[in-house]
């Protein structure tokens, strides 16, 4: 049953609030495992297909769900050992909210009804808010307030967009259920003016959540102030969910014959995000904020890739997978750095390789991965996007694209090299390194490497099915 995917985490999440800490931890990891199991059942279509008005099993949804479920398992293991070090008093609330957050995100991945998708995306905002202000410091409260208010207002605008899309159907005297699957069937008859207006509002609304510039202002604050396991989940899973909302509407636009229009909108927002993050990453003093800006950049890359279409759409989907793996790994490493040095300032975290060799290596490898260096998957995906753009004749777009990539690499590498290779100021270690916290980021990085060497056939097929609805192909 498809709905189990969100029902289980929600029920478990509520239970964890009330369970004693130790049993709660076990339940937390057990739920993560079971979620991965249910996702695998759905991925291979083991259970019988579901006939629901509100939910359906789509290739793009499955892709997002599978990434999320895989990440969550390793993040949950990391969380348990991380929380043991920080001695948080509110651990059941944190773990419970993580599970509720997973439930809301899973609901996004399988939602088919337009408004249900909206409800699920709004729910992700609300369920993740407690994760950010769990420390109750001034900065984290400010970050939470910005996050909840900016995202709620943005998502409210997306609801307006949903109404416009429903209206585009009603003005044409069509009466089909308002789910994406049935609307895609009658897309050609929808009223174009209202559909365009709806798409703009939805891109602004869900784009706020996805971190597209200029609506990204909440993202660096929320991602840097949240505890590191929550940041990893926000960056690796939540942004993909918001992207899924935009992607579903892009599919609808493509089917309605307005693909060029929606592509150009996506490319414009994508390039703006890349340029904005390139500018702000240059003078960062906080390594978690640096990673957050890098997430904005990568969401921009995905938007550009989907906008260009063809081969680039395949690249964008690959990029989504690898970005999630590498970026979560980086945020988990950042959590280890924060534990070891007790500060988020780049200037005060020198000499990582000598003081914390495991973390230093994973952080540097993750940085190489996120910058698009060869053994990692982001190299392949960025190359495919660039090739796709050249095939499509989008030379101006690709010039700006490559320019921003170089700028971001130049800005971030200066900071990261200083953190990893310089001489430490002193040999103080607040919390020593442990394998239990070093392994999850390493495994995530190795998964990204493994997927470059061997892309399983069913994954390849799912990506192809997901992009075929916007005219994307590998051979195009």
């Amino acid at each position, binding site marked *: 049953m498809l709905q189990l995917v969100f029902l289980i985490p929600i029920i478990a999440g509520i239970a964890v609030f009330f369970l004693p800490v130790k049993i709660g931890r076990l339940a937390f990891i057990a739920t993560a495992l079971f979620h991965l199991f249910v996702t695998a059942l759905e991925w291979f279509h083991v259970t019988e297909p579901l006939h629901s008005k509100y939910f359906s099993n789509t290739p793009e949804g499955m892709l997002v769900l599978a990434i999320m479920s895989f990440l969550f398992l390793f993040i949950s293991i990391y969380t348990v050992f991380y929380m043991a070090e920080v001695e948080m008093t509110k651990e059941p609330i944190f773990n419970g909210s993580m599970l509720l957050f997973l439930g809301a995100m899973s609901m996004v991945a399988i939602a088919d009804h337009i*408004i249900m998708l909206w409800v699920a995306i*709004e729910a992700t905002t609300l369920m993740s808010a407690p994760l950010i202000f769990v420390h109750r410091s001034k900065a984290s409260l*400010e970050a939470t307030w910005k996050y909840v208010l900016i995202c709620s207002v943005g998502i409210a605008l997306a609801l307006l967009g949903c109404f416009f899309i429903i209206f585009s159907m009603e003005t044409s005297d069509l009466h089909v259920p308002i789910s994406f699957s049935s609307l895609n069937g009658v897309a050609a008859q929808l009223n174009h003016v209202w559909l365009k207006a709806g798409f703009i509002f939805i891109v602004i609304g869900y784009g706020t959540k996805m971190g597209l510039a200029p609506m990204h202002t909440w993202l660096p604050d929320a991602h840097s102030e949240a505890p590191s396991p929550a940041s990893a989940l926000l960056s690796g899973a939540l942004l993909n969910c918001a992207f899924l909302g935009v992607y579903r509407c892009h599919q609808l636009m493509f089917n309605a014959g307005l693909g060029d229009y929606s592509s150009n909108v996506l490319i414009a927002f994508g390039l703006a995000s890349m340029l904005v993050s390139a500018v702000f990453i240059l003078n960062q003093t906080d390594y978690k904020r640096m990673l957050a800006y890098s997430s904005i950049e990568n969401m921009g890359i995905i938007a550009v890739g989907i906008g260009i279409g063809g081969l680039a759409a395949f690249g964008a989907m690959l990029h989504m997978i690898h970005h999630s793996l590498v970026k979560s790994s980086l945020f988990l490493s950042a959590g280890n750095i924060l534990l070891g040095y007790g500060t988020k300032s780049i200037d005060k975290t020198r000499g990582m390789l000598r003081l914390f060799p495991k973390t230093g290596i994973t952080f540097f490898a993750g940085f190489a991965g996120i910058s698009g260096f060869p053994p990692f998957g982001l190299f392949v995906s960025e190359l495919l996007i660039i090739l796709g753009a050249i095939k499509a004749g989008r030379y101006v777009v690709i010039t700006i694209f490559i320019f921003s990539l170089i700028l971001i690499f130049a800005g971030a590498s200066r900071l990261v090299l200083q953190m990893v290779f310089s001489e430490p100021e002193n040999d103080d270690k607040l919390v020593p390194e442990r394998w239990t916290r070093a392994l999850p980021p390493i495994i995530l990085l190795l998964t990204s490497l493994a997927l470059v060497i061997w892309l399983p056939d069913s994954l390849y097929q799912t990506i192809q099915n997901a992009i075929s609805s916007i005219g994307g192909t590998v051979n195009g």
Partner: protein
Amino acid sequence: MIHISNILLALILLSVLLSLRSNRLMALVKLMAFQGVVVSAVPLVLETAHGVNFNLVMFFLLLVLVKGILIPGLMYRAVKWVVVDREVEPIIGYHASLFAGLIMIVFSVYVTNQLQLAMLPENHKLLLVAAITTMGAGLILLMARRKAITQVIGYLMMENGIYLIGTALAKQMHTQYVVEFAVLLDLLVAVLVMGIVLNDINHTFDDVDTALMGQLKD
């Protein structure tokens, strides 16, 4: 003949203008409760042409419970907790906000006339005018006030406006109670979460003034 729906729309506009003028947080909360009840009644009145059925009435009661009682109740408690009860030094003054609200009405009439909505009945067009004004005024409140509570009220007003736009445009929305209920639940949880954060902000900063928060920037 004055249709009853027109009276409701006039009441909504009145509550919008009053809330732009008001500087007392408690008065704002009461206005929100009033507006919530009126907004909930709009679908009931509009649909009378097709006959009122049991589901519609039940849903009306649910809407009143959430928008008229629960949400204002939560806001009421939040205001009680907070020491200050006035909005001091708004970013945009009260007279200017009120004037902006009036301009908003003119603008909504213009927009509604520009959209070629020949197929909509006449009272739906008036509804659209009220709806766009409410949404715009909510945005004004969000941006022009510094107290976090007023910002939440601005968000609620914007949500009311969007709900009314949905009522005017998307007929199918009102036949799917599961979905509408889910949207309502989201709104309620949103206010609950905002209330919890508000409470913590008040504890930590001794105020709910968002101008005090400015640590995070680039």
